[in-house]
């Protein structure tokens, strides 16, 4: 095995051999069809519970605002009101509705997760595919680039970027986060591509005179879909955590409420000393549950895609 494993959240390992298993005496079909995958996915408790929690928060973020009476920043009620009555999660020191802020923050959280994850996934997969497939000098150069970005403490560079250039919107923040979180994806995809490249079907496609892009899309990518999907899930969670830290430092988007910003304001306005737990517990709990559910879902998906784990 290689000594390097793609790593995301501290030490969360995605082993480099997804789904490769010695079928007992060739009696099982290699690869799985979509229906079979879905069958196992819908029967895996980890996938179900994780998916349910994530979807529940997503729905709350999507349709929640329709039922709110106050805007997140409105001075809507009495200051420092505990949860109950008009304000299910209480109010801030200024009488802002914590629930309204929470719902609005969920939207930013999902947006930054999806966009940041997508940007990182696209960059990482492209670079990984191209490096692994083309090999030679291109591989050397891309590999070097990957290693450099991998070693740079991205969070600190993000601080500098945000401080100088300012980040006005959530998509902008997601873009910057994505730019610094792709390297391990590129590494993993590269090694996967290398191992797939040597297989017969790629040669066959090449002999039939199909272009590189088509080969990658038609032959290599389908063999890696499960792996790529799981990668995206991890990037999604990672982007959310990074964004929360930036927002907390006060370098988040200036035009949107976010869960990180809620924690920033709570700490800044002494919510800890005043005991306003309803102000700082929900945003962090929301992030923890969303990201944690994504991770647990990922373990479940691993079992679904990797029959060896499924049976034991």
């Amino acid at each position, binding site marked *: *095995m*290689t*000594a*390097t*494993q793609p*790593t995301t*959240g*501290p*030490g*969360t*390992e995605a*082993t480099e051999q997804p789904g490769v298993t010695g079928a007992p005496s060739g009696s099982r079909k290699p690869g799985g069809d979509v229906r079979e995958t879905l069958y196992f996915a819908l029967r895996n408790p980890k996938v179900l519970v994780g998916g349910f929690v994530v979807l529940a928060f997503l729905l709350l973020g999507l349709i929640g605002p329709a039922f709110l009476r106050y805007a997140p920043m409105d001075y809507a009620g009495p200051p420092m009101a505990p949860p109950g009555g008009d304000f299910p999660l209480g109010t801030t020191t200024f009488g802002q509705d914590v629930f309204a802020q929470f719902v609005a923050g969920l939207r930013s959280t999902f947006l930054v997760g999806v966009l940041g994850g997508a940007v990182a996934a696209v960059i990482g997969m492209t670079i990984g595919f191209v490096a692994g497939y083309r090999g030679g000098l291109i591989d050397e150069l891309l590999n*070097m680039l990957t*290693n*450099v970005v*991998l*070693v*740079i*403490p*991205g*969070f*600190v*560079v993000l*601080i*500098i*970027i945000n*401080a*100088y*250039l300012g980040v006005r919107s959530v998509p902008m923040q997601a873009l910057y986060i994505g730019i610094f979180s792709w390297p*391990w994806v590129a590494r993993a995809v590269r*090694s996967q591509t290398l191992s797939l490249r040597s297989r017969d079907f790629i040669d066959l496609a090449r002999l039939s005179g199909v272009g590189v892009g088509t080969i990658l899309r038609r032959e290599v990518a389908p063999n890696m879909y499960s792996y790529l999907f799981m990668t995206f899930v991890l990037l999604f*969670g990672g982007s959310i*955590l990074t964004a*929360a*830290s930036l927002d*907390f*430092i*006060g370098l988040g988007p200036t035009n949107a409420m976010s869960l990180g910003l809620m*924690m920033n304001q*709570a*700490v800044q306005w002494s919510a*800890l*000393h005043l*005991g306003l*737990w309803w102000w*700082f*517990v929900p*945003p*962090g*709990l929301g*992030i*923890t*549950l*969303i990201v*944690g559910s*994504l*991770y*647990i879902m990922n*373990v479940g998906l691993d079992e679904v895609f990797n029959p*060896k784990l499924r049976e034991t």
Partner: protein
Amino acid sequence: MRGYLARKTLVYGLTFVVAVTLNWLIPRLMPGDPVQRMVARAAVQHPETIESMTVYYERMFGLDLPIWQQYLNYWGSLFRGDLGTSVWLFPTPVSQVVLDAVPYTLGIMIPAIVLSFVIGNTVGAMAARSRWLDNVALPVGYLITAMPYMWLAILLAWGLGVALGWFPVAGGYDFGLVPQWSWSFAADLLHHWVLPFLSLFLVSLGGWAIGMRNLIIYELESDYSNYLSALGAPRRLVRRYAFRNAMLPQITGLALQLGTVLGGALVTEIVFAYPGLGKLVLSAIQNQDFFLLQGTLLFVVIGVLVANFVIDIVYVLVDPRTRTGLTGATA
């Protein structure tokens, strides 16, 4: 082995150049006249500060010079150790401000990293293939890993600090004390250290445990484990080998995690107003002290690169494959 380290050094050298270049480039991407904007944004009162700032900014940016010369000058002042003067703590040099803060950050980071690594890996190794531990440790581990660093810090500050009153929740030492070499001061320092350390330690713990568990399972299914078992080796021996080999990717992972843990340390310090680099970053942002911000970045980059190099040397010592010149995929 020499090839392995040479390659790594090349990567680190390149990374340093890229980081310095970014540090130089980003302010120049600011829309409008950066000098005017920054002086205006800084909103400082002292006339001499404003003047010094304007002069320094102009010298640093040297906007009338050709772009390549601006770039070379930047490197020149860097090698003289000149990171500028802090605006916030005028007229202390940035390097002095940063050096004063570094021990606090290292003081919580190093113990947190080392202890979480050791304990996390041990727990993970025990959890692998133990159904009961696995069912408890795994979900808990994932939830801890999913916690935003500052949230756990906030919870600890609120629970153990404000509510129970066991630990102070702000500062590196009591405001009434003057830093000195005495037992009472050391005790106070330690008292303030507990919560930031604990917070960082706990968030890192889950990831190592999960990583080790997954790696051990992977190793236990590997060919050498099967061969040993087929030759009647007891479980103990097979697991010992698996653990040893699973440590290798974990060590690589440690290097990759440094950036993340560092980010965690910064926000944790902010929650506890702990006088390390995180607090410095926050103050720099709030006071629009860009020299300080950039100086901190450079220090952090250098620190991460040095730590990476140390980890590489450790890796060479524990993985014979790098020594025999037959490097695996690590490079």
